């Protein structure tokens, strides 16, 4: 792939990407969240079209028209989330969409045979072809997924974070499979945050940062610290407003908090007037921690103290009454009612200021909402406009406005600046500072390190469901956070 570019509206997702993979090579594609890895792979697999640049496959120009076409040309993709039909059997899944048949009649015997062969090439003929897939373990399901891809005789196999849901031994098995495939001449593009893994299986690497190829080389001889530097080495060009604020007594304390699978064991103290950042990779358990804290997911172990009271268990409505508010990372699906008005979205947790005996005074509601619209600078035509018609940044301000209108003392903000424009971002940073100055306690989860370093008082880093390090923000560097986030124990303090 040479000079590939891709724009989405105003954002340039890919600027200038070069990627070269030899036949039978296992190639690591490395980069932070949002560096453009997924976009690049979606272009390669035909889901997106590039705006500029060229792709060559076996020396011939290759323009995938759609995912189906890309698959026919020998490009296969394994997604982070498995895409199997859980109720169908292993054999049915492996040959889904390309069933051996004669005049529309299914050839069951041949199907089972083909599935068995595919599993055997992976060295896993022990998986029964007739078992429904949902009765297999996650690791086995992944093998089925790979077997399915092999039916198409791929030349290039893209694997996106294949080990993120696997235990260590299962990961080893996966590496063995990758080696087998590579010996058969299949090229593998291996996307992962975990650099040791890349070192274990990959021959070469390419690092993406902010949509550009910033480096490549031989994986075996490369220093992990050099690669980390390549991943983060960008200039900080955004303005982070720091509003001076005083840090007071603890308001929220977590002691050994564990959820069903994530978080595993989290200790954390949040003080009045403090902005506490939580960094970590996708899947590290940051969102899950907030959800458990807010009562959306159960807390299975440990205690939560709110203003020194034991408040371990509670529903979201209890939490709101206790003065805890959550901003969902998923604005469109969870955070907002898109087809309802700005007014209803902003006030849905607290109608009290403009209602009596259960009756809402629409006029006073709109007046109250207008105040918030002005204060937060929400660009909307009127308070009754549907939220779906607003831009992402303004939608996020509505969602944030709900917490402010509720007057929550503890704000759990999950990726508050995801997918919004720089102007809105700056406004939200400023707002967070002002809230801290008012004495609110704020948890700020983000995957974007400059903003964490820019506005937080302290930053905690999570990895695999645990907090691996917590330090005042000035003592962190981006490299240090990345190292802690990928579980590089040596560089994280005890």
């Amino acid at each position: 792939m040479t000079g590939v570019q891709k724009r989405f509206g105003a954002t340039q997702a890919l600027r200038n990407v070069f990627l070269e993979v030899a036949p039978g090579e296992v190639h690591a594609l490395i980069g932070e969240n949002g560096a453009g890895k997924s976009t690049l792979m979606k272009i390669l697999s035909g889901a997106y079209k590039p705006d500029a640049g060229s792709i060559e496959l076996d020396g011939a120009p290759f323009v995938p028209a759609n995912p189906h076409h890309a698959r026919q040309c020998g490009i296969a993709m394994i997604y982070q989330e498995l895409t199997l039909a859980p109720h169908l059997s292993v054999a049915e899944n492996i040959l889904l969409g390309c069933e051996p048949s004669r005049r529309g009649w299914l050839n069951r015997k041949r199907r089972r045979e083909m599935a068995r062969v595919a599993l055997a090439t992976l060295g896993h003929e022990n998986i029964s072809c007739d078992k429904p897939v949902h009765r297999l373990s996650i690791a086995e399901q992944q093998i089925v997924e790979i077997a399915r891809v092999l039916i198409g005789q791929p030349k290039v196999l893209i694997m996106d974070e294949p080990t993120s849901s696997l235990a260590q031994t299962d990961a080893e098995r996966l590496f063995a499979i990758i080696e087998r495939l590579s010996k058969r001449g299949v090229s593998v593009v291996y996307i992962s945050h975990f650099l040791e893994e890349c070192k274990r299986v990959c021959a070469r690497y390419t690092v993406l940062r902010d949509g550009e190829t910033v480096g490549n080389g031989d994986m075996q001889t490369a220093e992990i610290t050099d690669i980390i530097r390549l991943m983060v080495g960008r200039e900080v060009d955004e303005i982070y407003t720091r509003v001076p604020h005083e840090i007071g007594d603890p308001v929220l304390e977590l002691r050994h908090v564990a959820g069903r699978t994530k978080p595993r064991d989290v200790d954390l103290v949040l003080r009045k007037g403090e902005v506490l950042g939580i960094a970590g990779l996708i899947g590290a358990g940051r969102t899950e921690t907030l959800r458990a804290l807010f009562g959306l997911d159960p807390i299975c172990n440990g205690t939560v103290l709110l203003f020194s009271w034991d408040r371990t268990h509670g529903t979201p409505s209890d939490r709101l009454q206790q003065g805890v508010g959550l901003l969902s990372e998923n604005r469109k699906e969870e955070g907002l009612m898109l087809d309802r008005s700005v007014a209803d979205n902003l006030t849905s947790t607290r109608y009290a200021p403009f209602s009596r005996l259960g009756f809402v005074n629409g006029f006073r509601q709109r007046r109250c909402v207008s105040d918030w619209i002005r204060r937060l600078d929400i660009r909307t035509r009127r308070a009754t406009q549907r939220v779906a018609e607003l831009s992402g940044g303004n939608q996020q301000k509505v969602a944030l406005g709900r917490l402010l209108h509720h007057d929550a003392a503890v704000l759990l903000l999950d990726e508050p600046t995801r997918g919004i424009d720089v102007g809105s971002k700056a406004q939200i940073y400023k707002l967070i500072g002002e809230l801290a100055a008012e004495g609110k306690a704020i948890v700020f989860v983000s995957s974007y390190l400059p903003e964490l370093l820019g506005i937080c008082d302290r930053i905690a880093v999570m990895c695999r469901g645990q907090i691996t390090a917590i330090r005042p923000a000035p003592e962190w560097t981006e490299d240090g956070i990345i190292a802690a986030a990928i579980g590089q124990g040596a560089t994280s303090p005890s």
Partner: protein
Amino acid sequence: MNEQPRTSRMLALLNWFGPFIGLFAVVGLFALSSELRPVLFTGANLKLVLLQTVIVAVGALGMTMIIVSGGIDLSVGSSVALTSVLGAVLLANGWPAPIVILLIILLGGVIGAVNGSIIASLRMMPFIVTLGMMGVARGLAKWLAGNVTVNAPESLVGGLMRRISPNTLFPLPAGVWIAFGLAVLMAIVMRQTIFGRYIFAIGSNEATARLCGIRVQRYKVLIYALAGLLFGVAGLMQLSRLNVGDPTVAIGLELDIIAAVVIGGASLNGGTGSILGSMIGALIMAVLRNGSNQMGWPNYMQEIIIGSVIVLAVGLDRLRQTSDRT
């Protein structure tokens, strides 16, 4: 830039008037026939249409609430049959009419509360739960009536739906006024109360509702129970109309009610719908029936026409929404 607000406001207006346009179209089409025109607009006929609307309309009040909250209730027809049979049996046994009326409505509420509790506590699909209740309530009605039609003696109940002077529009039967009053009440509940906002919130996005601290499951029980009370009122009207408790009555009524709500602009995905729209929807259905009767069209024609109108109404709605988005 200035153009956009105007068009969106126009669309909003069109949204609001949509059901009315439908009603006018249906009435207008029937009025094309010269033999029908003199009959259609007489007080007597209008009264008949209103009377025929009452049961579907009262049912649609409850159904609107349920559908807006993202649910569905298929047990309405059976619920109407069971409550009306209970009323007839009690009246036949000499119970005083006011208490019977109260019990009829209460039974409707209980059925709804059972539906709601199962849906909320087991997180089951409303479709399945109320489908089950449809069978259970129908069976109970037959058992209670001993599988025959129960004649109720003359009482206050029978007076609710009687036409005192069949040839003029006024006085309207009490049932029509009750339906009208309930519609106004429900419109206020849906639009002006916190409870109403919660119904829309739950139907619009249950995850968000939960995030906003709305006790979603508790409200679901409440919604189905309240709707059940209204279905009880519909049962009362059913009993009043013929003054008999017939366990096989109102089969398929739930589909008429759902059709009325959907024609009125509600989405089965929840989050949208209005009492006014549903009432117009109920009227459209009644006018279609009445007009077809007056034209002397056979029953099967009516069914074909009403079926087509449902698809047409919702199809137009969909078209409007897609054009709205682009």
